[in-house]
């Protein structure tokens, strides 16, 4: 089992990906904090952190600007901070607006786009725009070159794949190639489409009940001067994602379904020729190393230590439940490692308390950055 610092050796960008509810935000923050402790200047870019985690990182006042997390906070948890940890909460709408301002040839175009109804829907509500903007912000920060390592906590899409697909879908929409061809009043397309297209539009108007086309054509004509800028930018964002200095880390949980999703997601990343660094499995029930006698022996030994047969019985029953979950987790993770043909699987144990503060992050860090033997030791307890 590698440590997180081995996985991230020489990397400038780390993208934590996975489905919702598997502890991606916490993992991203722990990775950035751990690498900062080892002397790097890191920045974690997050979407929607738990309130208390955000508070403890000093994130409450943040919009789209990075701010430094006070090293003293970590030192209070016994973590020596040799580098710097910065954190930023992403505001997707503001990022999209910034992008429009940057690419707009003049003020009039800028305002036309910002005020267009279709644009407003896309920039705030359309599924995919958050993902696209997360990539965009990542690219911007990377270009500025202020950090040694950027860690991106990807948005909570139900299907982890949406995140890879969204930027492409959105750029395609903005390009609007197939539609613009029909909207052009003259030219070959008009001749080919001819009367058919206009009948089409009247059917559409009849079904939709509003002139989507009027809004869309306004959108496309306002956007037309910016399409190239967007395309160029998207190309460079894609190049950054595929760069050998970028590293995708798949985050998942140990149950059957999250493992299936991680396998699927990993395969898609490999197919897309994106660099995968490893997999982090959260909330794992660790198997204990102790020689297991039969239940009878354990109950007798517990009765001896606790001096209460009934209580010993309940402790043994609880332990049997725990072991069953540990067996399940181990089998699932073995399957994951086999499917991925990798040994780069880091297991974070299921801690006694929910992680939402710096003390919890410090605890997770011990596992992320520990060697295999150290981990088994930590898991066995003090």
């Amino acid at each position, binding site marked *: 089992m590698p440590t997180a610092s081995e996985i991230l050796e020489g990397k400038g960008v780390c993208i934590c990906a996975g*489905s*919702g509810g598997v502890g991606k935000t916490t993992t991203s923050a722990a990775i950035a904090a751990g690498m900062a402790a080892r002397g790097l200047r890191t920045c974690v870019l997050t979407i929607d952190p*738990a309130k208390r985690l955000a508070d403890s990182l000093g994130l409450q006042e943040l919009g789209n600007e990075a701010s430094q997390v006070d090293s003293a906070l970590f030192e209070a948890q016994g973590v020596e901070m040799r580098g710097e940890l910065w954190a930023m909460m992403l505001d997707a709408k503001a990022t999209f607006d910034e992008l429009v301002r940057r690419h707009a040839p003049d003020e009039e175009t800028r305002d036309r786009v910002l005020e267009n109804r279709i644009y407003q829907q896309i920039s705030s509500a*359309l599924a995919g725009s*958050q993902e696209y903007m997360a990539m965009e912000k990542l690219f911007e920060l990377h270009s500025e070159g202020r950090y040694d390592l950027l860690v991106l906590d990807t948005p909570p899409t139900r299907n982890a794949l949406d995140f890879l697909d969204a930027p492409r879908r959105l750029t395609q929409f903005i390009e609007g190639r*197939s539609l613009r061809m029909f909207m052009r009043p003259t030219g070959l397309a008009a001749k080919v489409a001819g009367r058919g297209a206009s009948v089409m539009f009247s*059917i559409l108007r009849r079904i*939709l*009940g509003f002139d989507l086309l009027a809004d869309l054509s306004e959108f496309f004509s306002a956007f037309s001067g910016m399409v190239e800028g967007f395309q160029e930018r998207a190309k460079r964002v894609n190049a950054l994602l595929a760069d050998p200095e970028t590293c995708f880390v798949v985050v998942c949980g140990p149950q059957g379904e999250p493992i299936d999703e991680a396998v699927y997601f990993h395969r898609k990343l490999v197919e897309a020729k994106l660099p995968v660094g490893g997999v982090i499995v959260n909330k794992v029930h660790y198997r204990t190393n102790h020689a297991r006698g039969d239940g009878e022996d354990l109950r007798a030994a517990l009765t001896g230590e606790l001096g209460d047969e009934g209580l010993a019985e309940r402790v043994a029953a*609880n332990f049997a439940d725990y072991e069953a979950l540990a067996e399940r987790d181990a089998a699932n993770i073995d399957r994951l490692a086999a499917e991925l043909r990798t040994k780069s699987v880091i297991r974070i144990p299921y801690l006694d308390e929910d992680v939402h503060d710096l003390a919890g992050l410090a605890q997770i860090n011990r596992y992320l950055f520990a060697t295999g033997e150290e981990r088994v030791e930590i898991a066995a307890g003090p």
Partner: protein
Amino acid sequence: MPDLLDKRLVFVTGKGGVGKSTVAISLGLAAATRGKRTIVCEVSSQEHASHTFKRAEVGFHEVELDDNLWAISIDPDESMREYVLIQLKVRAMRDMLFRSRIFTYLAAATPGLKELVTIGKIWELAQLDRKVKTGRKYDLVVVDAPATGHGIGFLQTPRTFAGIARVGPIHSQAQALDRFITDHDSTGVAIVCLPEEMPVNESAKLEQELREEIGVAVDRVYMNALYPERFSNEEAERFETALERSDGGTRAALRAALSEHRRARAQRAQLARLRRRTAAPVKTLPFIFEPELGPEDARNLARRLG
């Protein structure tokens, strides 16, 4: 206001990974057991129902899973197609639409249209006088709603659309959908939560937004996967004392007992937070110490859901 299972349509919602699908299936089973003809709808092709019942994929068909219990996986493209078939009676017009690349493009590009036709299909299933003439009549439709990654968006779609489309069939459709969703006698919502910090915060926020911004009835919040309180504080202290002297085989068992005690206690604190912060009644569901959930577990949960 009628009880949750006496309504016609129930949305089961919450953030990703909290067990929404399990609760949706179990609610469906609970209603079916009471003799209600029930259908469970999945909307993001995750096919949980078919997994739990060890069935082949459900797909865009009404498939029987158990006595009185059916399932369907709603695909937005299929729903769009069905909607157009119902709206356009003239075959030539339909054929033209379906063949057209622009239509495919616009249907995919129009913000929220996929969600709208998905809700439209759910509504259609919940009607006693169904538009799909071959369809069965259901007493209850349970929806395993998409994860609330993007807030309350899904249930708000009809109202947003009614605003955008000023006239025409989509406008009146969207209005009808919104009326049905916000009618407390017809439609209810169950939020699923986990006993952890972030899910509790999000569920409380979600409940408030659903009530105040959309005006739907939130009937219930399920605190899912709650550890049993197996040991008292006093017993936990005895474990700690014993742990100091213990080595070998009992050590791991004592540590597991202490962990269980700490988690159960931390979870009770989260349960109390959830109760303070939500107006709807909070019901608890136990953590299931089984490697994978099967039909029996769903049945056991179903008994506790009503």
